[in-house]
């Protein structure tokens, strides 16, 4: 815990870190508090179509008279939930596969690396279309897809770290004491792999958010009437001649969310893993 | 006096406070002579080299010190005081030769660059011939072929030879060798020391050999200076200091060395190693009196109060030590 406090203080000690933390906090509050203070995002009010932002509707309404503050908040919440779920699942699975491959070496290592390469060889969007064609549209498909795309990234990093650790004295000392292999992985590999994995995870949050928005924008993501930042931007874009703010507000929220997460991730990387800072 | 260093003091600014790395260290090296600067880790011996070369870390500050090199005086407290001497008047050999070699250029290109900076007038062919000649002089095998090779293609010992060849071409007045053989095997170490001595004799420069090995100093150096916790405790000719160490620390340091010809005693309990008990003093707060007081085996009352000056040992003007026992015979 003290380590987390130390990291937080270090992040706050620089401008980009403070900015990232502020943006992320704003987005989190917006996503969590939004539903408490705004009307139901799916209630239609035909009389108030394209209402301008005001007291009744903070962000105005869309072409069906739905409250845009509520819809944007719901879309943000959806994007954040997806991003966190995907990043957590893929980082855990990826780290374990990577560590095992790194320790085992030999054909296990080669096979795992080959699978990682094959998955990474597909452009994510093409892979997305293929999976949507197979399993249909929906959040489950999306989670599966992005998890599959991200596992190799985490796996590769964990594998590289594990291969370095494997030859370090302290791991060899554990082996020479005949400590159980599962204990070695959990107690001595995982904590020493965790730093760069956490950094990579935080850097991948904005990627998932943006990817979800682009898929939804193209109509392959969330289905109506549920809202997502991507569908909000698209719907607003269709009726941009009637009113411009639905597109702009949704795009602004998306920008703040991805920018905040990116700045925070970069700051975290400078704190946890200073050697790789500035490289990608 | 070819090279003289006067009252060098260096502080490091650390998060936990200012640490004194060196306090009033003075050295003199004659031309054609090799001075061994010995000290254990934490003695500040490498800081001397870095301060002379102007290579100190950003958090280091020279608080006092002047260097006289070939009659020119340099105020070391000014940043980049000796910049004009780098590559011309001074050359340095590091423990890791890769610090001096650029991995993306061939050996030949780097040697020729040294010559180009030293004498811009000469033509390419002469420079290449001179570079190849330098490699031959430091006894690197197949110098012609080596000119086309990259540093990573050579072994550690060969790279160190290339660095010595670079120093040879720059014809410095002062060569600083900071643990030049520590990373090398003993057989290679002996050869590299021979090349450094060969270089000194060829161009007649002064050599400052910074090392933790008393063996190297007694075998190869003319004079020795002993550094402890940032202070120079003793200096003199190797012969005098070895015969009659003026400072207890010097004597204990010599006692710790394991001579190669010390035979094993059949009684295992007799094969003990000498140890200097205690630890280095806190570099942030210098204890009063003698810096070595806490670990000395012959200290007396005054040692904890009076800071010793530099006293002559056995009446010799060239052999001095900072020990109160010399002042009160």
């Amino acid at each position, binding site marked *: 815990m003290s380590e987390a406090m130390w990291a937080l203080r270090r992040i706050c000690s620089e401008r980009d870190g403070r900015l990232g933390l502020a943006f992320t906090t704003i987005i989190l509050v917006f996503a969590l508090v939004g539903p408490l203070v705004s009307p139901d995002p799916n209630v239609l009010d035909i009389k108030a179509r394209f209402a301008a932002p005001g007291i009744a509707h903070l962000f105005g309404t869309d072409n069906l008279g739905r409250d845009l503050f509520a819809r944007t908040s719901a879309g943000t919440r959806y994007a954040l939930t997806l991003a966190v779920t995907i990043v957590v699942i893929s980082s855990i699975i990826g780290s374990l596969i990577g560590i095992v491959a790194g320790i085992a070496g030999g054909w296990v290592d080669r096979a795992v690396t080959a699978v990682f390469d094959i998955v990474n060889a597909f452009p994510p969007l093409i892979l997305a279309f293929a999976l949507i064609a197979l399993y249909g549209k929906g959040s489950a498909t999306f989670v599966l897809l992005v998890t599959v795309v991200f596992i190799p990234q985490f796996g590769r990093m964990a594998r590289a770290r594990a291969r370095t650790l494997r030859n*370090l*004295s*302290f*791991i*060899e*000392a*554990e*082996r*020479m*004491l*005949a*400590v*159980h292999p599962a*204990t070695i992985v959990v*107690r*001595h590999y995982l*904590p*020493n792999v965790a730093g760069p994995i956490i950094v990579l995870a935080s850097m991948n949050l904005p990627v998932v958010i943006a990817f979800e928005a682009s898929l939804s924008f193209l109509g392959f993501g969330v289905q109506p009437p549920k809202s997502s930042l991507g569908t909000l931007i698209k719907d607003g874009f269709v009726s941009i001649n009637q009113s411009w703010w639905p597109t702009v507000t949704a795009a602004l929220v998306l920008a703040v969310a991805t920018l905040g997460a990116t700045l925070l991730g970069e700051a975290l990387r400078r704190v946890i893993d200073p050697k790789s800072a500035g490289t990608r | 006096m070819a090279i003289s260093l006067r009252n060098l003091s260096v502080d490091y600014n650390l998060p936990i406070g200012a640490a004194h790395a060196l306090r009033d260290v003075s050295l003199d090296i004659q031309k054609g002579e090799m001075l061994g600067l010995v000290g*254990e*880790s934490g003695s500040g011996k490498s800081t001397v080299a870095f301060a002379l070369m102007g290579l100190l870390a950003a958090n280091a500050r020279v608080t006092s010190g002047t260097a006289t090199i070939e009659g020119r005086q340099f105020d070391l407290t000014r940043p980049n005081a000796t910049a004009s001497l780098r590559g011309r008047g001074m050359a340095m050999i590091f423990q890791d030769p890769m610090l001096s070699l650029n991995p993306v250029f061939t050996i030949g290109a780097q040697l020729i660059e040294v010559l180009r900076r030293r004498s811009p007038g000469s033509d390419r062919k002469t420079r290449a011939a001179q570079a190849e000649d330098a490699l031959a002089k430091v006894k690197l095998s197949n110098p012609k072929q080596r000119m086309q090779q990259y540093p990573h293609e050579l072994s550690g010992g060969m790279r160190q030879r290339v660095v010595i060849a670079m120093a040879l071409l720059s014809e410095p007045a002062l060569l600083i060798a900071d643990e030049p053989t520590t990373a090398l*095997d*003993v*057989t290679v*170490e*002996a050869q590299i*020391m021979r090349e450094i001595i060969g270089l000194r004799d060829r161009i007649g420069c002064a050599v400052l050999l910074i090392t*933790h*090995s*008393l*063996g*190297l100093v*007694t*075998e*190869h*150096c*003319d004079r020795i200076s002993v550094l402890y916790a940032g202070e120079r405790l003793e200096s003199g*000719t*190797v*012969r005098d200091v*070895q015969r009659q160490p003026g400072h207890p620390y010097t004597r*204990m*340091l*010599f006692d*710790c*060395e*394991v*001579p*190669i*010809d*010390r*035979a*094993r005693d059949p009684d*295992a*309990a007799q*094969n*003990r*190693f*000498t*140890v*200097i008990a205690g630890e280095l003093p806190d570099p942030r707060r210098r204890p009063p009196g003698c810096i070595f007081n806490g670990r000395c085996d012959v200290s007396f009352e005054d040692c904890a109060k009076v800071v010793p000056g530099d006293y002559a040992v056995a009446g010799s003007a060239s052999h001095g030590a900072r020990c109160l026992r010399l002042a009160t015979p």
Partner: protein
Amino acid sequence: MTDAISVSNAQLRFGHTVALDGVSLSIPQGTCFGIVGESGSGKTTLMRAVLGLQRLDAGDIRILGNPLGHGRAALKRRASFIQPIFQDPAASLSPRSRIRTLMNEVGTVLKEPHAATYERLAVILKRLGLPASVVDKYPHEISGGQARRVAIARALLMKPSILIADEPTAGLDVSVQGDLLNLLQDIRRSDNITLVVISHNLAVVRLIAENAVVMRAGKVVEGGEVGALFGAPREAYTRELLAAWPSITHSGP
């Protein structure tokens, strides 16, 4: 009595380089044995093979008469016979575990109640001059010298009959290396442990080992009792090593 360690005709190549080229040696129980050589001589590779961290291409290694097995049962048995002291012992402590956790692991492997482990640990810590409070610290919170002793304490907690120390004095100041060597000698005598010291430092090996071998390019050049080996070497290479050693016995120029 069976030898503590016996190696016969060990062969190992890494690609085109020969790391071990027919090494045979036997180390009697309860003695101190030195392996000297320069970098690339194969001395560290030989140690890793003996510890089971590196498989051989051919040859046989026996620890107290037992062949090296690679299963978990064989590993457990070997762990109670032989323990390493690595070149940088401070790096042989897992950086994110408390020293207490690391010591508990040994008890778990020995299937010993923690209380019994601590009783033994207290004795060992006292003997190594370590405060009992050291177990509550993380490795980065203690000094290098203490970390070195903690690593030795952990190896001793396993109750091994053989200790292998790889370059135990590398990078240490002369005033400190003696302390460590004296400690290793004391432990060896009082616990009747077989101590194998791998080092490039001939002077040190000559004093602490009864027998030694000189290695070069994966081969044993010569070996025997240290008095004869270093006093009257038969091979030119051993003489060359001895001559090249910078020693204070020579008077200056």
